[in-house]
């Protein structure tokens, strides 16, 4: 398959990338290319120019100042999956990144591209929403930070403007007694998420002090399962409680929004979502306890 013709410019810095975006109408950012190149090959998009940000080293890497972890937009899924810092302080993220596609996809695909693309079947949007990430966007007015509910605006739509660059995401390190996990119903062929669930819990003496549960895959943009969270907080956590709370996930899913396809209908996804919520919660509780 051959993509339509386009021009190509390589940016050496974020400032240069923004200038190039500005100078070339109808241009699109290229990071790892693992969502964009398939789209170009299928001719679902035909930008006039690609602005390659893939060599901007400042956008790569994972670092913490002891409370906030910053992950550069170009950090690959493989690097995230292998990070000991993230495994210890934001476990759901490397767990999800390690389940994306296959090893070769993880070597090229980036966290920035994954969330900027905002495919509902992607894994990282739900995880980052659950971990309370801030999305750092650089635009004409400098840098701004956007939270997940404002960042993910719907099917493949985010807060990143046309001549803006997502430079990275920021997360708080898990505190004492806190842990997170990701549980995914992977499509058997593509490995994309049919249902993906991220959970973060805080435990003190066996009692749940905080809970955040976010589901993706079956909705256009990540959805917080408030009813599940409320059923947990303040309660002594048991296997039965987790199972019972997980069943409330349907309360947060709007039937009109649910996605379905030939592989898994919307109704089927909704009916089985609780199992993946339970999986993520059980794993997070085991880690926190």
């Amino acid at each position, binding site marked *: *398959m*051959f*993509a*339509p*013709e*386009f*021009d*190509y410019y*390589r940016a050496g810095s974020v400032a240069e990338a923004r200038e190039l975006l500005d100078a070339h109408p109808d241009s699109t950012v*290229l990071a790892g*290319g*693992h969502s964009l*190149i*398939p789209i*170009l*090959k299928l001719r679902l998009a035909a930008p006039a120019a*690609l602005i*390659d940000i*893939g060599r901007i080293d400042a956008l790569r890497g994972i670092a913490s100042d002891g409370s906030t972890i910053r992950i550069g937009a170009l950090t690959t899924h*493989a690097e995230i999956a292998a990070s000991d810092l993230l495994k210890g302080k934001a476990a759901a993220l490397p767990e999800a990144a390690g389940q994306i*596609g*296959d*090893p*070769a*996809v993880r*070597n*090229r695909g980036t966290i920035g591209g994954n969330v900027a693309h905002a495919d509902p079947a992607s894994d990282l949007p739900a995880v980052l929403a659950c971990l309370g990430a801030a999305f750092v966007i650089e635009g004409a007015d400098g840098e701004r930070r956007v939270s997940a509910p404002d960042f993910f605006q719907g099917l493949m739509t985010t807060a990143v403007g046309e001549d803006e660059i997502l430079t990275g995401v920021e997360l708080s390190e898990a505190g004492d007694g806190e842990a997170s996990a990701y549980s995914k119903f992977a499509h058997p*062929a*593509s*490995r994309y998420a049919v249902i993906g669930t991220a959970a973060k819990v805080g435990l003190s003496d066996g009692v749940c002090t905080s809970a955040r549960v976010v589901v993706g895959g079956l909705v256009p943009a990540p959805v917080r399962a408030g009813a599940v969270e409320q059923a947990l907080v303040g309660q002594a956590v048991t296997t039965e409680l987790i199972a019972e709370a997980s069943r409330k996930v349907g309360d947060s899913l709007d039937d009109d929004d649910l996605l379905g396809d030939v592989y898994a209908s919307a109704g089927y996804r909704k009916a089985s979502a609780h199992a993946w919520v339970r999986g993520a919660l059980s794993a997070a509780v085991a880690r926190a306890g």
Partner: protein
Amino acid sequence: MKIPVSITINGRQYDRDVEPRLLLVHFIRDVLGLTGTKVGCDTSQCGSCTILLEGVSAKSCTCLAVQADGASITTIEGLASHDGLHPLQESFWNKHGLQCGFCTPGMILASHELLRCNPNPSDAEIRHGLEGNLCRCTGYQNIVRAVRDAAGAAEGGAQ
């Protein structure tokens, strides 16, 4: 628009002017004539186009040649040394890890990546590590045996 690229493949540098939309796999196969790298699905599913880009596996059907400008690449043609086949090639041969051979270049390079990250994988880890590569012929059993054999050979010092 044409862009000059300089890409080193199997130790040899190639300088060419390419269209930005040219896929790396077509650069390798059609521009340079290195046809060991295959195109199976052309949709990043099958892994038959797998190469090593700066030492790590990548699907060359989902990469532009311009993205690889300045990079060093190994294709199946570059894996063997003058002294003989690479241990993975020996193992695929000895364990009958192929039938028609179409998936084999990609399988071997994906196996190379697997053993780079995990030199002593379990059978389950081998199957997981190769989940981006499809084979229509073998039923995978002998591919798993071949990778296990190559891991053992490396451990025994044969590499």
